[in-house]
Structures are given as C-alpha cells and as structure tokens.
C-alpha cells in the first residue's frame, strides 16, 4: 500500500508538472496530424490509403509522446538534485523507475488516440483486429519509453538527452517500416531495422490493421517484449552503476 502511494504520487506529480503542460499537449496533438497530412498528400491517393498510413502515424504519435519529455524529467531532476529525494525514498529502484516512466507510457498511449479518432471519421475501421492493436500500442509505448529511459540514464546533460533521443527518433521513422516497407529498404540497411524494437511493434500494427505483416506475430510479440525487459534492466544497471556510485 505504502509503495502504491509513493508510485501514484510520483506519477501524478510528473503528469502535472511535465506532461500536462500546454506546449507538450499541443505538440502531442499537432505533430501526428501534420505527419498524417504530409503522407496523405504525398501519397496522392484517396481516403482508402488512410488504413495503410494509420500504423505509421500511430507509431509516430506514441514515439514522440513517450520520449518528448521523459529524458528531460529524469536528467533535469538529476541535475537539480531532486532526483536524490526519490533515491532516498524507501521504495525499490525498480518501482521508482516504473513510476518515473509510467507518465511517459500513459502520455504515449493517450497520444495515439489522436490519429485513431481522426481515422474513425474518414475511414472504415471495422476490419481492424483491436485485440492485437491494443497490446501493440502498449508494447510500443513501453519499449519506446524504456528506450528513452536508456538514453536518459546514459547521458548527464539535458541537451545531450534531447540530442540523442532525436538522433534515434527520426531515423526510426524510416527504418522501422512505419511508412516504407522494410523490404523496400536497401539490403545493407535492413539489419538496422531488425535491431530496432519499434520494427516489431509496427509489424503487429500492420498485421492488425491491413493484414500485411512480414514476420510471425508471435515472434513480433516475443521480440518487442524481450526488448522491453532488456532495456529496463540495462537502464537500472546504469543507474546503479553511474548514479549510486
């Protein structure tokens, strides 16, 4: 019970002080709309292409929603030393970091509803397998959050965190099959796609929304799940090694 009070309050404080701030909210809403519009116009096709664009736009929404302020919340608090307060609290490091990342995960999940709601009005979503979409959204949110966490605990300055997260975020849009199928990428680049966790989440979304996936869904779930665990454990290891040294 005591642990949950701590967990909930850390999450609520982060939500209030970082996530639910106007610039962050508007960024979260506007960005996916702009991307949707851009690809929609570029593809030059009619409304029937909405479904094929949806997985990519949803993933972008999650990716940018989760990583927008996470690294800032952590590196910033560490620099201002308020993070020490959290480290001194009698809660396990695992629970503490879950609390610190839940805000990002939640924000990513909420963000994804922007393109989905838009799609409801312009396309027929009846063919979508929601029982696959929901877990895929969750897993993409978790894996990109932990990816951001991993970056945040590997650097010490706020600007480094932002630079690094952009360094990974933008290429992922092209490498992970969001809009361009991986199979259309040059052969020598493809290995990169397969070591990025988002690839597997996007594959599930494609499978659930358009039915076109390139790997077995079981494999997709296993790999992205494994990435979640490994990234989280690596981050904890880095925190223990670097911050409690």
């Amino acid at each position, binding site marked *: 019970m005591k642990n949950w009070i*701590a967990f909930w309050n850390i999450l609520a404080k982060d939500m209030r*002080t970082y996530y639910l701030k106007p610039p962050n909210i508007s960024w979260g809403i506007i960005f996916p709309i702009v991307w949707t519009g851009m690809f929609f116009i570029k593809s030059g096709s009619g409304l029937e292409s909405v479904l094929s664009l949806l997985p990519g736009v949803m993933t972008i929404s999650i990716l940018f929603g989760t990583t927008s302020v996470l690294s800032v919340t952590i590196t910033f608090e560490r620099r201002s030393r*308020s993070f*020490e307060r959290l480290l001194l609290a009698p*809660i396990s490091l695992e629970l503490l970091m879950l609390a610190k990342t839940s805000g990002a995960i939640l924000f990513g999940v909420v963000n994804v509803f922007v393109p989905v709601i838009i799609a409801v009005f312009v396309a027929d979503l009846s063919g979508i397998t929601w029982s696959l979409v929901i877990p895929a959204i969750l897993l993409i949110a978790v894996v990109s959050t932990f990816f951001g966490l991993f970056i945040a605990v590997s650097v010490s300055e706020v600007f480094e965190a932002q630079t690094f997260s952009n360094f990974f975020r933008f290429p992922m849009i092209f490498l992970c099959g969001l809009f361009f199928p991986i199979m259309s990428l040059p052969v020598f680049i493809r290995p990169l796609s397969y070591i990025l966790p988002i690839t597997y989440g996007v594959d599930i979304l494609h499978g659930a929304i358009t039915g076109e996936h390139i790997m077995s869904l079981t494999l997709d779930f296993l790999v992205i799940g494994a990435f979640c665990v490994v990234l989280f454990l690596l981050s904890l290891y880095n925190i223990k090694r670097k911050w409690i040294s």
Partner: protein
Amino acid sequence: MQSESTIAFEVSKLTKRYGEVVAVNDISFSVARGELFGFLGPNGAGKTTTINVLTGLARPDAGTINIGGIDCTHNPKAAQHLVGVVPDESNLYAELTGFDNLCFCAALYGMRKNERQERARDLLAIVGLTDAANRKFANYSKGMKRKLTFAAGIIHQPPILFLDEPTTGIDVASARQVRQIIASLHRKGTTVFLTTHYIEEAERLCERIAFIVSGRIVRIDRTADLLQPVKGKNILVLSISNYEPGISEEIAKAFPEYHVQSTNQGKVRVESAEQIIVGPLVHFLEERGIQMTEARRQVPSLEDVFVRVTGIEAGLMKKEK
C-alpha cells in the same frame, strides 16, 4: 561497548574513493539511540560523502554499515525507512509550492493524504513558512529554501536524522530557529547525525563529536571530555597595533608561567592555568613601546581543542558571524 539495541547506527572501517581521492578513509564509529552526534571538519573533509554512503546515495568501497540493526552494506534500501536526510543543498521541486513539496515528500514515505496534509501544515508552522505555503519553491529565498528542505527531511518523523550543515548560509535568526528544532527533535528521542564546520554549533548542540580531516576521524569523544583539557584555563587575547614577529617570544621569556602564542596578525594569545594578572603585562609592553589596543578574556572553547587536535587554524574553518 554499547549493546546492540542501544546503537542507532554503526559503521566499521568505511572507505570511499572517488578516483584518486580518498574521500572517506577507514572510519569507524557508532552512534547511540537518541544521541546528538556531531561530525566536525573543514571543507572537503568527507562529511557529505559519509552521509551519502550511509543513506544509500553512494556505495562504499570497503567497510560495513549497520543501521537500526539492519546490515545495509550491500543493500542500502533496507534501512531507508528509518532515515531522514537534510542535504547540504536544497533539492526540492522548484515548480511546486512549499505545501505541495512537503505533501509529495510525505507521499514518498507512503503517508496517506489527510496525514500528509496535516503534517505538512504542522511543519510549515514549525519552520515559520505558513504564509509562504502556497508560493512556488522557486520563488523562496535561500533561507526559506533551507527551512523547507529541513521540514521535508523530517516529514516522516524518522528515528534517525542526517543533517548536512543545516545552518550554513542562513541568517542568525533562522539558524537559531533551526538549532531549536534540532534540539527539540533530540529531546523527543530522535538520533541526530549533524555535520558542520561551525565549531561553536557543534559545541553547543552535540553530545559527542568526531573531528574529521581529509577523510579520517582524528578524534572522537564526548563534548564534555573534549573540553576537559581546556576547562579552567584562562586565556587572554591581546591586540597589538605595532605588532612585530618575536613579541610573543619576548613575553614568554618575561612571563615563564604563561603559555604565549602568536595567533593571527596583531594578536597574542596568553594561556595559563592560574589567573592572568593584567597589570604587569601592560607595564611590560608599555616599557618596550608596544601599543596594546585591547586585552580580551576568552572563554576556553572547543575551538582550542580543535586547533590542538587537528592542527588546523580555526580561522580556516568558515566561522559563524
């Protein structure tokens, strides 16, 4: 030796290195339950490092730590519920109000909402920040920040409290207020570990004091026992306007019953177990054309002991004004 149950915490052969620097070097001590223990040392002595290692913010390179009967050497989390920390710098959330900061800190210790708010209000009153309760921490003055940080450290009523220079950088009235709070916590049975470089503060508050210099404890004793050798000593400090080196030697030759020492510029310190008769001294100096502007009797203090034990000139420690 104290029995297990009367010991609040204990460290043994504790060492902490940062690269080449040995911040804490093989220190051992134990603090009894309810004791107010002082850790006195100059800048960079290893005071903060000791607190960090004890509270789980840093990992020791060698030695063992036991807090409240729990071995925390390898699991610093194990005893964190027993411990409160007031760090040397304010580390609350700039964007939250004073009240929200305290409520948040209380929540970290699992306190329920009503309990949190009540405790936050009580503490704001105790540290005199009730009027500033709804202002953002970022807009607090330095002293207000220190006081709120103090309140945050005791929000969960920890049986063991670590205070890292709690009165540094705040005005005299606030410092007195903080000392009163410390004394009152101590009276109520809280074990307090207090680091400071104010010798006077350690003398006034602490029951037992360790002198720490360059990561080593050079002396550890009850305050009364530390003061024993200087107790009953008479000290007279003479201010001399046309001071020249060698004056103290001259005085020492003429008054072999006194222990004479030059201190800072223009001052001569005369020490004796017997009462010091001023007349002959003044006469002696006058005959030699030495102009004495002031003769001040000094109450022997821990400062004398500290200078003797550590060889560090007390003026080098930041002194309280």
